[in-house]
């Protein structure tokens, strides 16, 4: 990826973060912390990696994405709006009665959402089913799923990991958004999951560890995943919860709390300053 391309991705990720803050502020609820940590990954997936067409969201041959950590949908919704699946203004109605954008992803009501999710641990199984369907039909679409590090405490994640490697689902890529924090505190204090790389390796995955905010590293990880045959890939992406908003970064309390007016304005002005800086460099 050249520097111009990288700059464009950074701009889109910054806009996605602005959308996540806008959405959670208007909803007076939601999960900004994990939305901000995963924004670069969502951006890369939808603007560089996946073969998708917002004008044909149900194309049977499209690549699929499952947000297993469904609560981080505010920045995914923003990414989908930026990609053209629906209007940006939908973010202002996030979590409102009758809104297209539900508190957790709803595949029936939101264009671009490939799987309903929100109950942790379930997304990887659904992604396995999609990847298996591709294999059964000799289709070459790929399936991606993002899960949280805290989510790896769910037993079902490991049931699905066994299934994925047993069935040689090399068209499946699991991305763990390793921001290190969950509701009750740091993951390693609540119920430690490390060594996560060794766990996934022993479950039969190709494991790639990256900085989840570095687009060059993200790109290399997805290239490795594509080159990996006969086994699924797990990308362990080290991230910062609340990334991009100074007072939210690495704060457990911003897992599931919406910004108030003052916090919304400060967060937005920080992100807009970053955006102006990035656009100025173009």
């Amino acid at each position, binding site marked *: 990826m050249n520097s111009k391309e990288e700059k464009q991705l950074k701009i889109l990720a910054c806009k996605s973060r602005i959308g996540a803050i806008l959405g959670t502020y208007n909803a007076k609820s939601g999960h900004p912390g994990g939305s901000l940590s995963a924004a670069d990954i969502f951006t890369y997936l939808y603007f560089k990696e996946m073969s998708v067409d917002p004008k044909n969201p149900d194309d*049977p041959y499209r690549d*699929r994405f*499952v947000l297993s950590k469904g609560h981080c949908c505010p920045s995914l919704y923003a990414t989908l709006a930026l990609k053209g699946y629906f209007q940006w203004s939908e973010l202002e109605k996030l979590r409102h009665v009758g809104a297209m954008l539900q508190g957790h992803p*709803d*595949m*029936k009501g939101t264009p671009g959402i*490939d*799987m*309903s*999710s*929100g*109950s942790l*641990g*379930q*997304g*990887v*199984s*659904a*992604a*396995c*089913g*999609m*990847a*298996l*369907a*591709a294999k*059964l039909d000799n289709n070459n679409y790929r399936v991606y799923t993002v899960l949280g590090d805290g989510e790896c405490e769910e*037993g*079902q994640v490991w*049931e*699905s990991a*066994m*299934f994925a490697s*047993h*069935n040689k689902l090399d068209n499946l890529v699991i991305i763990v958004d390793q921001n290190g924090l969950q509701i009750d505190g740091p993951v390693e204090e609540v119920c430690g999951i490390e060594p996560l790389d060794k766990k996934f390796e022993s479950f039969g995955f190709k494991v790639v560890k990256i900085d989840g905010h570095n687009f060059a590293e993200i790109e290399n990880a997805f290239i490795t995943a594509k080159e990996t045959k006969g086994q699924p890939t797990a990308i362990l992406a080290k991230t910062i919860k609340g990334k991009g908003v100074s007072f939210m970064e690495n704060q457990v309390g911003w897992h599931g709390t919406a910004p108030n007016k003052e916090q919304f304005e400060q967060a937005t002005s920080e992100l807009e300053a970053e955006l102006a800086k990035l656009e100025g460099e173009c």
Partner: protein
Amino acid sequence: MAEIITKATRESFGMALCELAKTNKDIVVLDADLAAATKTSIFKKEFPKRFRDCGIAECNMMGVAAGLAASGKIPVAASFAMFATGRAFEQIRNSIAYPHLNVKIAGSHAGISTGEDGATHQCLEDIALMRTLPGMVVLNPADHYEMMAATKAAVEYKGPVYIRLGRLAIDSFNDPDTYKFELGKGITLHEGNDVAVIATGLVVNEALKAVRELKTQGINARLINIHTIKPIDEEIIIKAAKETGRIITVEEHNIIGGLADAVCQVTSAKCPVPVTRIGVEDKFGYSGPAKELLEIFGLCKDNIAKVITDVVKG
């Protein structure tokens, strides 16, 4: 008189799947290490490429089924009723029912007739669990012919379906030449206006024997077979309530949450009549031969006949 086939409905189900899969290429069958028991092994043998054993991991199996359905397949996920609907209830709710995905869930070894395995495996709550889920169709076929037809209907219906399978071999009573399965429609098996017996699943044949025997003694009981517990046939229940004024439900399930409650919900709103419930009375089962257990729990011809007589003679 049609040929009586003595077969467990799980086996009829496995045969039906195999038959349907010959022309329907979208059918994919999943099991959780119980293929030999749920009889998806019949499908596995014929269509190994379209069969996946998920191992002893029911929760993942339901999610895999959801993903397959979201990609255009018609997945059938089978396990024992206890583990399919109990262990994986939340996966079924959130990954299958909420997005209304085209998954068929088969719960075998349902009810007390699971027998010797005892209480942990005798699922008496599956119908209750499944019928609380919005959009879930709940089927409980009563004999070989009905299971064959119900499996076909389940596969043809677009949306989530739970289908209950039994372990015990039972005699068929339907006539394949005249039998017609219609999703959501009850079937009147015996006419009568003294009382209406509404039965489902494995015990329908016992109820049929009971009402036939009572007819010779001058008691005219109507018998309705409810193979579709959800959506339930309100019309046939209201008509029976109006014309007989008394209902008896018979099911191999806890009397809480199953057929009895489904019937009472209709009658209490549309035509209140006294309803007597035959079923497992809010208890766990225990080990023993299936037929003995069915007798002990009152799910046999003699007890059904006794209850009918008591209700009619007041």
